[in-house]
């Protein structure tokens, strides 16, 4: 067991590694009532094509299978795992994202009993033809629910406009058609490939005893044979965007939009990725933050409202920046953003804005540490992409003005940008006038 105490953050973390390749982390939160425990596998919606670790054959599975598998793992021969969690009072759930699936619970009592249930059910799949069929109805309704969600639609449309081939553009839950193709054999195949301890981590956050957590894992871990690294097959992605503009209409009151910038500088070593991530966040604050002249101007002109915001997603296989919200004229906002970026590129970043942006980015990172779920999930995301969330706070101070100026010039480019709009179903014509 290894212990790291970060004095600047006032956080401590315990780490343990197991012979089968599993790693476990305890982020200690003294005097917290609740504890979070997450069992995560590096397997998400983008992993639809891979080389089978044993047969070495290339396998391609239906879209939405990682998410389907997540739903099905809760099923047990005698019912579902909620029966067992209910006894010990945990709130259990799971989620699937592009690159990971996380099973977790939050409890304020009986932590170790609940923890054993988590370790047990994630390691014991139970799929039958019948229970797989039943789940298609539930997931079908989940997909339909998202189809009616304008924020989800505008987001996936943007990814479709940004990417030509990268599977990040595929809806995490798949489609009503693709899930129909899923069989229990597919589920077992994906389970046996991606739910190997060497591809998984456990993160616990709360006022728990790290040694006891690690011992429980040791005892519960099913020993399994060694598995080589899983080779995932991602298609080549051109540098250009797939399309400059994508539009749809839904029952919304006002147009909703995202503008995306495709980042082609991927596959960097971890330290460089952290630095790129922080620099982009700082640059974005200086360009579009709430305290900039630019924000004030668009707001006063009625082009944006309080819902205007931005975020940067930084992964080894794909990175993109997105900015958006609601506007009566999304295309005008897009034009102004491009114009503004070019203007700042010419004039340079304002030094005072740079200093302020650094404070904001630091505050935003520190904020995450107050919430056990948030910090654990961030930790998992970061870990799977090869970086440590704790390093971020330290590195923010080391980012220089010059680095950010360089990043601005290299990254924000009209040619690799695009726009996604959801227009109001009944008002499209009047809004576009």
């Amino acid at each position: 067991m290894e212990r790291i105490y970060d004095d600047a953050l006032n956080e401590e973390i315990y780490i343990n590694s197991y012979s089968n390749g599993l790693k476990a982390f305890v982020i200690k939160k003294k005097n917290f009532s609740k504890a979070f425990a997450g069992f995560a596998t590096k397997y998400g919606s983008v992993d639809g094509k891979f080389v089978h670790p044993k047969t070495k054959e290339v396998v391609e599975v239906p879209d939405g299978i990682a998410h389907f598998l997540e739903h099905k793992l809760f099923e047990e021969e005698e019912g579902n795992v909620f029966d067992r969690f209910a006894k010990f009072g945990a709130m259990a759930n799971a989620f699937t994202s592009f690159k990971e699936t996380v099973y977790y619970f939050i409890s304020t009592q009986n932590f170790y009993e609940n923890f054993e249930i988590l370790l047990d059910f994630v390691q014991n799949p139970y799929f039958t033809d019948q229970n797989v069929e039943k789940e298609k109805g539930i997931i079908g309704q989940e997909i339909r629910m998202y189809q009616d969600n304008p924020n989800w639609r505008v987001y996936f449309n943007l990814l479709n406009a940004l990417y030509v081939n990268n599977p990040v553009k595929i809806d995490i839950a798949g489609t009503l058609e693709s899930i129909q193709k899923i069989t229990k054999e597919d589920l077992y195949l994906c389970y046996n490939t991606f739910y190997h301890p060497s591809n998984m981590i456990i993160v616990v956050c709360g006022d728990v005893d790290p040694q006891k957590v690690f011992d429980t894992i040791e005892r519960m871990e099913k020993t399994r044979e060694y598995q080589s690294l899983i080779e995932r097959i991602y298609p080549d992605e051109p540098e250009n965007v797939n399309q400059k503009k994508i539009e749809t209409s839904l029952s919304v009151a006002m147009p909703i939009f995202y503008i995306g910038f495709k980042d082609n500088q991927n596959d960097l070593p971890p330290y460089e990725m952290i630095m790129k991530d922080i620099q982009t966040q700082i640059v974005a604050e200086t360009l579009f933050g709430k305290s900039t002249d630019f924000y004030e101007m668009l707001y006063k002109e009625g082009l944006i409202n309080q819902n205007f915001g931005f975020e940067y997603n930084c992964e080894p296989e794909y990175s993109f920046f997105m900015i958006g919200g609601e506007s009566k004229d999304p295309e005008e906002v897009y034009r102004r953003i491009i114009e503004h970026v070019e203007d700042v590129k010419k004039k340079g970043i304002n030094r005072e804005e740079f200093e302020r942006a650094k404070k904001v980015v630091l505050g935003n990172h520190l904020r995450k540490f107050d919430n056990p779920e948030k910090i654990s999930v961030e930790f998992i995301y970061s870990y799977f992409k090869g970086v440590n969330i704790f390093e971020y706070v330290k590195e923010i101070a080391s980012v220089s003005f010059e680095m950010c100026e360089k990043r601005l010039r290299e990254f924000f480019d009209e040619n690799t940008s695009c726009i996604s709009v959801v227009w109001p179903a009944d008002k499209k014509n009047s809004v576009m006038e």
Partner: protein
Amino acid sequence: MQKKEKNNNFYMAFCDDRFKINRIAVTFIDKLERERNTLNALFPMVLIRGNNKYKDMKEINRYLDNMYGATLSIDVDKKGDLQAISFAVSFLNDRFAGENLYTKALQFLYDIIYGPVKYGGGFEEDAILQEKNNLKQEIESRINDKVQYAIDRCIEIMFEGQNYALYEKGNVDDLQTITKEKLFSQYQEVVTKKPMYVFVYGDYDEEWAVSKALEVFGEEKRESIHNDFSINIPFEKTKYVTEEMEVNQGKIALGIRTNVDVTSEDYYKLLMLNGILGASPKSKLFENVREKASLCYYVFSRIDRFKSVMIISSGIEIENYEKALNLILQQIEDIKNGRIDDIEYESAINYYKTALMAIYDSPRDLLSFYLNQALVGQIIEPREVFESLKNVNIEDIKRIANRFELDTVYFLKNRGVAKDGKDL
């Protein structure tokens, strides 16, 4: 916990060193009435556009950014027949900022709320005009979230003509009639005469934190306002309403009169019933409508802390309306007949234990929990609420369920499908 109460000014502080972010929240309470609810939703939006101290939004945001990305938020909420108008600042713990931000944050919040009164100047015409437009869009954007929209429509139909039916953010027609003078006088009345709640969570000494807040916000005499928790309209028969919109999935919302006095001990029995019916992970609705019948992805029940009302909500295939409705109603019937498994009871009690104890780990949740307690007039801790739940037995739950009356069944479906909601 440190508490001070005088002249309808309420101060509370909760302090410990567990968090990196502190929080100050100031809430004013007004009656939720058509004459004022739109004005009350609008004035906070105008306040954060600037005043004589911080000349515009940019200056406000710069001040916040320099406080290590502190955030200022405004919120208008419905608490039964009351409207709560809140302002909150969250800011970095002194330890990480390297300076004392508490008194700065207090003064900042005070200047935002009282700037136009204290430093003169009133509201700017342009800001009012623009925020009117923003509020109009916000009200109209209710249709974006279909789950909440169906619930809101169900309540509107159920409470037609009553104040509780009003939307907390107001109404588009009333927005047009708002003048600069009307808005300013309503604003002034709220921030100087209506009950005020100043709640703080931070890494400080509690007594000191309260005294500092008091120094800034004072304890001038304010009105007292009473909440009405009852439904006040006689039940006649169940209303079935179907509406159409461009949707892929149908949304069903049931409005139930619980006939429980939510300020009495019966409230805890109702809560347990709610856990068993549709809030806990092993609830009857989740288990039977989702897991067994595979009819939906989400289904839940919810109680309003300030009204004797339960709402049940689910998203279903449009053609499954009758099937889903019958199955939902069957779950209530089962509770009326006392058909409650041990696992359902256990799951509900454990669900509440986790949910209530988790409140202690979020300054935001804790402050809003205590505000709700204060507004109901019973300040007890989350762990005491749990103690009351533990005493509830199956007979209590059965008795409460037998008081239920199904008031409204609302169904949102797509356009052009013939099947209508009808009496069952």
